[in-house]
């Protein structure tokens, strides 16, 4: 498997270019934690249903807060269609690797045009026409490999198709950052999401930024998390999409906490929903134009506006409570 960490040749090729590119974005602030970082083994997914509710703001702030508290933190950005976490954590990219999925390649000498492969392919990625080898449509292929198994002539081999790339580096406060970037025009996000998740390391607080929506990319991201945090906003659209996303998390049986962002006007339908479903609100972040302005520039909110650190502290305390763990108890 292609672990980014292992692709040293690939890394060498990119190092010069990348270090030049990242120089101007390098974190300027000195890390404030000088001691040995402590292990904390947990996978926390930050999701939202509706896009733009503040998922990345919360994920980045949580990662930053935990790192400041002396924990080893890894930030895994699974929003591979539009990854944004790195714009805030500003990692120096140390390695890049293409991510590929399998596509069939047909050996035209062996193929007898029997049509077995195209008959079994569930994605219409192979089309058989009389007298010629099947046509392959790579954009439709899910890389399942069934055609290789069912070809009676052994005429199908495993080829590769690039769907995007993985980038990895160390950002602010020593946070280890991994993100996937889906190629423009590519439909298959889920295999790339799985690759980002495969980079997760044990004994780290793994903060996983999920894609918006409530379909398969969300399910693929949340799958085996220890805890899901849903960020919502007190609006009809926010509530509608939250309720669908919550049902995905509940079906997967993962513990859930809410963050209510842009909390301004009391929005009774959201409060009623929370009460009816006995959901746990971990923290609320008020509507504040300054947050939007700092966000627009790529600032981390609790660093730019320290008065909001207590809101993330509440979030962390609630994570400790539901997971029966201690995160910041021993921290300075």
């Amino acid at each position, binding site marked *: 498997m292609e672990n980014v960490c292992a692709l040293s040749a690939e890394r060498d090729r990119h190092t010069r270019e990348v270090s030049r590119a990242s120089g101007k974005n390098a974190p300027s602030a000195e890390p404030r934690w000088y001691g040995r970082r402590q292990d904390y083994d947990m996978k926390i997914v930050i999701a*939202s*249903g*509706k*896009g*733009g*509710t503040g998922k*990345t703001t919360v994920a980045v702030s949580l990662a930053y807060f935990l790192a400041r508290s002396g924990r080893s933190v890894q930030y895994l950005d699974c929003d591979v*269609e*539009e990854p*944004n976490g790195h*714009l805030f954590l500003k990692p120096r990219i140390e390695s890049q690797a293409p991510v590929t999925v*399998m596509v069939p390649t047909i050996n035209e000498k062996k193929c007898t045009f029997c049509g077995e492969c195209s008959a*079994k392919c*569930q*994605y219409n990625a192979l089309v058989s026409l009389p007298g010629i080898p099947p046509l392959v449509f790579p954009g439709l292929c*899910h*890389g*399942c*490999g*069934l055609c290789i*198994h*069912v070809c009676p002539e052994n005429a199908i081999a495993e080829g590769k198709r690039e769907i995007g790339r993985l980038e990895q580096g160390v950002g602010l406060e020593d946070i280890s950052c991994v993100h996937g970037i*889906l190629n*423009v*025009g*590519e*439909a*298959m*996000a*889920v295999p790339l999401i799985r690759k980002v998740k495969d980079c997760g390391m044990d004994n780290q607080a793994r903060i996983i930024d999920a*894609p*918006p*929506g*409530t*379909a*398969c*990319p*969300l*399910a*693929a991201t949340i*799958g085996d998390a220890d805890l899901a945090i849903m960020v919502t906003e007190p*609006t*009809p*659209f926010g509530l*509608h*999409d939250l309720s*669908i*996303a919550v*049902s*995905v998390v509940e*079906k*997967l049986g993962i513990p859930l906490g809410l963050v209510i962002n842009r909390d301004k006007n009391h*929005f009774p339908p959201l409060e009623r929903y929370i009460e009816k479903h006995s959901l746990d609100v971990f923290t609320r972040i008020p509507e504040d*134009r300054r947050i*939007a*302005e700092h*966000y*627009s*520039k*790529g600032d981390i909110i609790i660093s730019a506006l320290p008065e909001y650190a207590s809101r993330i502290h509440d979030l962390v305390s609630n994570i400790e409570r539901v997971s029966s763990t201690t995160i910041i108890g021993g921290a300075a």
Partner: protein
Amino acid sequence: MNSIKEVVVVSGKGGTGKTSVAGALVRLLTNRVAADCDVDAANLHMLLNPVVIEEKEFVGGKKAVIDASRCTGCGTCREVCRFQAISPDYHVNQYQCEGCGACYFLCPAGAVDFSSSLAGTCYVCRDKYSKPFVYAELLPGEENSGKLVTMVRNEARAMAEKNDIPLVIIDGPPGIGCPVISSMTGVHVAVAVTEPTISGIHDLERIIDLAQFFKCKTAVIVNKGDINPDYSKRIEEYCSTKGSNFLGTIPYESKITEAQIQATTILDIAPDSPASEIIRVIHNKLLTILEEL
């Protein structure tokens, strides 16, 4: 009638105000069919208060289920599954299963069942402006959202043909992946609603590249423009370098959220606000682009 034009409103980044802007444009366009292709988090219907005329079932791809009574535990399915969807005790995780059928076709004991099930619903409606509107709801966590998007677009085009309407306006999903591609292929104009933030710009570049890849004409609206006037200006410049039509900058307006809570558009609750004025200008510019097609 072959001259039906399709316009899709997209954003790349979520939460830029795509649906609020689309809702306002839908209200202003007089002769159109509206369609919501954000099938896993549909919201436009909440502004259009539709009456459902017809409900159509969406059957998704097939999924594998292992029948324990026929399973011999040989392990073939776990070997051939490339999606790690089968547990050591031979249960298929329905969220991991991509429905490829490898386990079904290759199980020597024939212990795998493989069938389709209901994955969503498509609603053909008449909206509160008495005009056709089509939307859909994918069941939570389901796959094949792209196919459901195609179903919504087909129904919307059928409504346009039946009623002799020249325009379909589509509220698209966020991102650039499978459902966005399905919403965009063959569309005439892609209107991107963005915001002047570092993430908004990053994501805008990707969605414009995608639209141009599919040979759509592109247009850009900046929402919440005064959050960062520098970035708003930068987006305007970016549009001219990309040959994209810049339609206008909508200022941050808290009444847009208020309109959403009242299930209507900013044009209805604050018709004289600067945001409403600029939306009317944007609408006129869009009509000009459509006439020039």
